[in-house]
């Protein structure tokens, strides 16, 4: 239980930073995007709580706004991947036969492939070819979320399928079928609730994976494009300034660490609570 609490505490802390970002901007009287070249690499102090970056933007403020992007992409990607994965796992378990074989071979194939280079390849696709405007922060978030979902559903689908096969073979499902319950109602009302626990664990791990993957892509310059802040691209900026502002590299990494550790702790706590 302590793991679950600690994990939730970390996540709530980060989420409140995301919510409080505009309020902090008002308090500091600054814009997270507006450059101020005279404040370049300002040391941590009264004016800039954590110092300023290479364009004189407040690091604490960018960290708070970065939480919106990083947590937003992580949660959206994990939520979509969990929904898709549950649906696919449920379909595979229910239909069986060639549908099951095809879907699970697809999952095996995706798991066998090296994820990172493929993510890099996909991230370099031009959004303009799909009619999305280039260079908008929102486009970047949709683009990265979509890419992460393409890979993220696999883990959830395998767990959901395994759980659903067990439930579909149980006596109460046979009883429900004998009573003439329609297949759709059977799946939604009698099978799906039984999958809550494994799907919740897989979902929490998916959030951790998505936050980490987004930060890696943004760090490589393929994710969220500047000037919009994300923890990943803040680290990319900090890497350029290891001489001028070595402390700038500390905070975004700690934020990613806290987010990923928080999700892992929640997943760990949830799976322990089941036993």
């Amino acid at each position, binding site marked *: 239980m302590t793991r679950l609490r600690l994990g939730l505490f970390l996540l709530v802390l980060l989420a409140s930073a995301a919510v409080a970002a505009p309020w902090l901007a008002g308090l500091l009287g600054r814009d997270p995007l507006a450059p101020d070249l005279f404040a370049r690499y300002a040391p941590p102090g009264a004016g800039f709580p954590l110092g300023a970056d290479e364009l004189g933007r407040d690091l604490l403020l960018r960290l708070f706004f970065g939480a919106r992007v990083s947590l937003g992409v992580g949660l959206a990607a994990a939520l979509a991947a969990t929904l898709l994965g549950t649906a696919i796992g449920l379909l595979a378990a229910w239909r069986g036969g060639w549908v099951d074989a095809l879907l699970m071979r697809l999952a095996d194939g995706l798991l066998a492939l090296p994820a990172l280079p493929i993510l890099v390849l996909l991230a370099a696709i031009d959004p303009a070819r799909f009619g999305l405007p280039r260079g908008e922060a929102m486009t970047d978030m949709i683009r990265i979320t979509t890419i992460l979902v393409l890979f993220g559903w696999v883990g959830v689908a395998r767990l959901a399928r395994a759980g659903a096969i067990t439930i579909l073979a149980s006596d109460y499902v046979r009883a429900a079928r004998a009573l003439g319950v329609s297949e759709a109602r059977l799946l939604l009302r009698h099978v799906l609730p039984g999958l809550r626990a494994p799907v919740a664990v897989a979902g929490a791990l998916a959030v951790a994976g998505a936050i980490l993957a987004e930060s890696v892509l943004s760090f490589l310059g393929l994710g969220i494009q500047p000037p919009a802040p994300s923890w990943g691209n803040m680290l990319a900026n900090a890497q350029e300034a290891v001489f001028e502002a070595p402390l700038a590299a500390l905070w975004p990494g700690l934020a990613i*660490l806290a987010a990923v550790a928080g999700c892992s702790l929640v997943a760990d706590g949830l799976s322990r609570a089941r036993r």
Partner: protein
Amino acid sequence: MAARLPQIALTLVLLSLAAWFAIGLMPGDPASLAMMADPKLTPADVERLRALHGLDQPLLARYGAWVLGLLRGELGFSRLFAQPVWMVLWPALLSTLVLVGMAVALAAVIGVALGALAAMRPRLAPLVDGLALLGQAVPSFWLGILFIIFFAVQLGWLPAGGLPEPGSSSLPFLVLPVATIAFGQLAGYARHATAALGAELQKPFITSIRARGAGEARVVWRHALPNAAVPLLTLLALDAGALVSGALVTETLFARPGMGKLLYDAVMGNDYNLALLALLLVALATMLATLAADLAQLWLDPRIETR
């Protein structure tokens, strides 16, 4: 097991097809890049270049031509490096294998030692658990930046990245990247070793060996570890395969010309042929490592049945 090879081949074909179309969706093609590089090129020249290199053909036709060339053993050229692709891929693969091999070996040694310690002294187990959580949650590129700031910038002990002058030792240049990758891996190994050794130490044959008066160190290292090592070795092989491409971030950070950085540079520089072949090569390496892991497990533990 024999069914695995066609499966690998099919996956590679599907991957190459998917990647081919993904590359088709990227901005810019080689001809328009040539135009940017050389202001003397007129639009008519670019059209001629497109026709000359077959860039005016539909994507699928170009894919067919590319596969036919591949089957004849023509890997083609890298536009970015102006060299045959093989000449670029080979040294990159070697560099990555050295990096990953050293990192996995180091992580395994430290991880197993920590795991053994935790299995022998259960009071230390929460420490290993905490370390494992940390190791999995720390973004490796962040750890790498902190290493650079501390060991290269502040202390000046080690180079921040790149490669040594020809003829001098490459070891100092390997320390920080190896440490970065190893830290991410060793926590997982420690956790696995703790669990596997803990389970092994409960077994009756251990009690009998202890009853005959063997020292605790001998019990753990000589009798429990070999049995616990089977799943661990599988894990090592899997990780090594995944890291051939997973080293991408570390290689980019430390400016090491390995497979990962090559792939990244090729994608960024619109060097399609190189990007595609590098992707297929790392995918093949990953899948072969998985196969090797399964075979090794079969060989080490004959009780596991062949499917």
